[in-house]
C-alpha cells in the first residue's frame, strides 16, 4: 500500500535561497496533516510543489504512486485530483459563485451543466453559502469566499486537499466558519495537508503535525506529542512564541 502523497529528497532554490532542503514526507489516505513553522520556513512552497504550482530542482513527488508529470494535459489531469485552497481565496472574479464551482466539473470533467449545478448547489449548501449562489465573489465576505473556494475544490472530487494558510487573510470573526468546514471535512475522512497557524485546529483534528524551519522538516509527530513535548530547540522556541498568550 503506497502513501497517497509522497515527497522524497525534494530540493528547491529561489536563486541563492535554498527554500526546500531534503524534504521527505509521506501522507496516507485519510490522514490530516498540519504543517506549522515560522514564516519563510518553506511550508507554503512545499504545499505548492505538491500540485506543481512550484517546480522542484530535484527529488521526487508522487501522488497515489504516480510521479508528478511535466506541464501539459497529464499535469492538468493530476491537478484535477488535488484540491487547493489559497490564502487569498482566488475565486474567479468574472464568474458568479455558482459558476466558480461548476466551471471545472464542466470543462475538465465534462459533466453536463445541470449535473454540475446540482453538485455545486449541494456543496455550497454543505459549506453554508448556497443562498449566495448567484452573487459575484466581490459581494461576499472573506469567510464566505473561502468557503466557496473549498466547495469549488471539492467539486472535482479530489483525492487530497491542500490548504495554503486558508485563514490567514480573514478577519478574526470569520476564521471559525472556515475552520468548521475544514473540521467537518477531516471528520469525513478527506486526506488533507494544511499549512496553517491555527494551533487549535491542529490539536483538534490533525493526525500528525509537521514542523518546518529554514526549509527543513524538523519534527513530525502527533499533535499531543508536538505541543507537549517538542524535541528541537527551534520548535520549542516557535511554540513558546505563539503559545504564550
Amino acid at each position, binding site marked *: 500500500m503506497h502513501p497517497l502523497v509522497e515527497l522524497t529528497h525534494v530540493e528547491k532554490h529561489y536563486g541563492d535561497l535554498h527554500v526546500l532542503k531534503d524534504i521527505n514526507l509521506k501522507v496516507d489516505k485519510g490522514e490530516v496533516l498540519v504543517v506549522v513553522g515560522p514564516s519563510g520556513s518553506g511550508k507554503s512552497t512545499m504545499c505548492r510543489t505538491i*500540485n506543481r*504550482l512550484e517546480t522542484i530542482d530535484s527529488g521526487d513527488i508522487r501522488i497515489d504512486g504516480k510521479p508528478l508529470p511535466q*506541464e501539459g*494535459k497529464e499535469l*492538468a*489531469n*493530476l*491537478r*484535477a*485530483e*488535488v*484540491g*487547493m485552497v*489559497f490564502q*487569498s*481565496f*482566488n*475565486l*474567479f*472574479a*468574472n*464568474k458568479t459563485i455558482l459558476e466558480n464551482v461548476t*466551471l*471545472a466539473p464542466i*470543462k*475538465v470533467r465534462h459533466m453536463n451543466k445541470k449535473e454540475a449545478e446540482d453538485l455545486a448547489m449541494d456543496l455550497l449548501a454543505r459549506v453554508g453559502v448556497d443562498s449566495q449562489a448567484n452573487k*459575484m*465573489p*466581490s*459581494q461576499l465576505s472573506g469567510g464566505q469566499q473561502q468557503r466557496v*473556494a473549498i466547495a*469549488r*475544490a471539492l467539486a*472535482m472530487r479530489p483525492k487530497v486537499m491542500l490548504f495554503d494558510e486558508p485563514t490567514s487573510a480573514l478577519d478574526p470573526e470569520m476564521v471559525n466558519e472556515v475552520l468548521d468546514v475544514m473540521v467537518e471535512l477531516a471528520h469525513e475522512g478527506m486526506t488533507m495537508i494544511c499549512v496553517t497557524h491555527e494551533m487549535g485546529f491542529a490539536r483538534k483534528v490533525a493526525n500528525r503535525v509537521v514542523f518546518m524551519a529554514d526549509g527543513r522538516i524538523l519534527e513530525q509527530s502527533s499533535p499531543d506529542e508536538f505541543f507537549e513535548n517538542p524535541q528541537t530547540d527551534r520548535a520549542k522556541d516557535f511554540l513558546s512564541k505563539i503559545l504564550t498568550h
Partner: protein
Amino acid sequence: MMESFLMLFAQYDIPRAFLVNIELTLWSALFSMVLGTVLVMMRISPISSLRTVAGGYVEFFKNMPLTIIMVFMVLGAFGQLKLSFSDTFATNFFWLAVTGLSLYTAAFVCESLRSGINTVPLGQAEAARALGLGFMQSATEIILPQAFRGSVAPLGNTLIALLKNSTVAAAASVSTETSSLMSEMIEYHPDVIVSIFMIFAFGYVILIIPIGMLTTYLSNKLAVRR
C-alpha cells in the same frame, strides 16, 4: 466664412470621405482585435517560441512608422508580391490599407491587452491551473475576459489612434478618404485654406470625443470588482 463652408460642402462630398475613414477604422479595428488577441495569447503561452514570435512581431510593428507600412502595402505587397484583393483598383487599395492598418494596430491592441492582463492577479491563473484547466481554458474562461474588461481604456485609446491613423491610407492610394480630399480641396481652393482645415479638424474632434467618453464610461462600468 460661412459662405466658404457652404461652398465647400456643396462642391465636395465631405461626409462620404469621413465615411471611408470610418469604414477603414471599423474593419481594421475588427481584424487588429482578432490578431492582437491571438498575439497576446501567444505572449502569455507556456511555449517559449510562441512568446518570442509574438514579442518580435509587436516590437517590429510598434516601432515601424505607419507610412512605411502603408507605402509597402501598395508598392511591396501589391506591386512586387502581387497581393491583390480585387481587380477594381479602389477596392483593392482599400483592403490593402485595411491590411496595413490591421497589422500595425494589432501590435498596439496586443500591448493594451497585456496591460489588461497585468490587472488580473496571478492567483486567478493559479486557481484555474490548480483545478486542472489547461492553458486555453484558463485563458478563454478566466484571464482574457478579465483582461478585456481591464483594458477598455487603453483599447479605446488604440481605437482613437486608429481612426486618426486611417488618414495615412492616403499613402496606400485610398483616394476617397479625408486627407486625400483635404489635399484636393486645398489645391483648388487655396483662398479658404483655414476653413478647409477647420472642417477636417472639427470633423475628427466630433468623431473622437464620443469614443473617449464611451470608453471612460465602459471602463468604469465593466471594471472587474475584486
